[in-house]
């Protein structure tokens, strides 16, 4: 169990950690998250005393870490960093056995560890053990980085944005792997990230930090349901929406970069505008940018080169929606009529955006595959 008791850290004038207290139970996957500069990495590093707190205590299984020799302490806590930091002068096998060797394990035991570790992540010993970090991809390197942290079987593993530098594909593979490893090995993991999706995927408990304080500490479902304040809510962002489809509004799906023209524009100007923007219909607004109607290429065609304004050609009979309207109504409208898009308006009648069939496809895809 990791326990923070009123831990404080200052750098000069600024207080990075302000009397924080919390507990992480054994076997829990705890994720520290928050805006940059909130103190999440500092919190992590006070656990293995890479950063010494100015006040308060950090206890591990009831023992004050402040009085344990810090070098000894770190050998019992796994540590994975974003830059990976595999020693380039050592092979994979040597990197994995850094901590076991510091703990004076004998050679046979070290060899067995290398075999076991590589097997755990499906990297064949014969193929990888003698490779150097520079001969591997970033994803493979960070796998070894994780194995190095696990090699001496520490009960606690600290991870500082370990997958932050990896491409999205590799990142999600490694997330799955770390979850699998954690279930199997029952480690207590403290994991720093700024990616809420990652936090929601991995965490048993999320610790949300702001300005050196803990804003909220809760399991992901609880945080989604009852975010403590606006910052948490903003961080959760689309995930809150995704959690409950009945609260999705038109604003969640609309495209905002729509092409509008003023009512007094001539036909030629509108045709040119359509060509430039590569669209076949325009949204027409009055001098105050309020929505009046739409103009499609079919409406214009018969009048090709006339020198008139568009005011007589535009359609005003389209049904419009409000940004706060239920998204489902917009979708129903799109599907039941033959319209290519529906228009979403702001409170003041100006155009907020449009929802197209592509928006629906995207929404469904997100629901299905996240």
């Amino acid at each position, binding site marked *: 169990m990791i326990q923070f008791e009123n831990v404080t850290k200052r750098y000069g004038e600024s207080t990075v950690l302000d009397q924080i207290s919390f507990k992480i139970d054994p076997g829990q996957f705890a994720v520290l998250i928050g805006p940059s500069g909130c103190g999440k990495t500092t919190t992590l590093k006070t656990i293995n005393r890479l950063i010494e707190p100015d006040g308060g205590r950090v206890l591990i299984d009831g023992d004050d870490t402040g009085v344990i020799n810090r070098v*000894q302490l770190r050998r019992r806590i796994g540590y994975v960093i974003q830059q990976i930091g595999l*020693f380039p*002068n050592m092979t994979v096998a040597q990197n994995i056995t850094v901590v076991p060797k*510091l703990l004076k394990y004998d050679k046979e035991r070290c060899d067995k560890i290398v075999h076991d570790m590589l097997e755990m992540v499906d990297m064949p010993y014969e193929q990888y053990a003698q490779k150097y970090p520079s001969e591997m991809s970033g994803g493979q390197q960070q796998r070894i980085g994780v194995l190095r942290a696990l090699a001496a079987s520490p009960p606690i593993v600290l991870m500082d944005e370990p997958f932050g530098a990896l491409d999205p594909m590799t990142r999600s593979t490694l997330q799955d792997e770390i979850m699998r490893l954690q279930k199997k090995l029952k480690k207590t993991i403290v994991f720093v990230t700024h990616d809420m999706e990652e936090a929601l995927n991995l965490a048993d408990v999320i610790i949300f930090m702001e300005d050196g304080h803990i804003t909220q500490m809760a399991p992901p479902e609880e945080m989604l349901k009852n975010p403590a304040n606006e910052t948490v809510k903003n961080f959760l962002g689309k995930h809150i929406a995704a959690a409950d489809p009945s609260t999705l509004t038109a604003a969640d799906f609309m495209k905002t970069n729509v092409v509008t023209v003023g009512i007094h524009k001539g036909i030629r100007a509108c045709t040119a505008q359509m060509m430039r923007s590569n669209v076949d219909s325009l949204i027409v607004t009055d001098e105050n940018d309020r929505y009046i109607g739409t103009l499609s290429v079919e409406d214009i065609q018969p009048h090709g080169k006339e020198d008139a304004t568009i005011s007589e050609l535009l359609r005003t009979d389209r049904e419009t929606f409000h940004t706060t309207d239920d998204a489902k109504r917009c979708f129903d409208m799109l599907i039941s009529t033959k319209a290519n898009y529906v228009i979403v308006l702001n409170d003041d009648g100006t155009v907020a955006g449009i929802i197209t069939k592509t928006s629906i496809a995207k929404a469904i895809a997100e629901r299905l595959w996240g």
Partner: protein
Amino acid sequence: MYGGELIRNIGIHLMYVFASVFFGFILGMTLGILLSRAPKYSKIVLPILSVFNTIPGIVFIGILFLYLGMVPMTVIIALSIYAMFPILKNTYVGITNVEQQYVEAARGCGMNRRQILFKVELPLSMPTIIGGLRMATIYTVSWTVLAAMIGLGGLGEFIYQGINLNQNALILLGAIPAAILAIVLGFLIDVLQRKVTPRGIQKEVRAK
């Protein structure tokens, strides 16, 4: 007709070079490591050292000659100090340029300061340190010519005689072997560099 003397002087020359570079290397590495532990002091110490570095060798040997007399120690002490400069600087630069991620990972793994130095920092800065050694050796080969100035032999003897007697052949008899020595020793150190560069960073080093 100078055959025997040539071989003898090459031997003396080499002896000076090896002794000076050896002491210079130990001194330079030690001071370089110490300075890298205390970057605050290095900001003061390094500039002072580079001022010393600009004092002509001939002046320094002259001064030491006044105190120590015409003994090989005079030459070896002077040249050791000159050999020390590039090694010290490269050791310092090599260690302080080791990427922070490796040091942080090492600390996180539970290495103490000594282990971080010997397992991580020194291996990673070895190519730079050996680069300093190479520079020191090649310089020392040419500086050792000065030993003859105070009558202590080496290839400089031919050069000084040649100048005094106005015999160009004699000057070349000293200069050419000295140049060859510098090239050969430089080559040997290149071989050494490949040996001590950890395999995992060899590609990187070559790419530089």
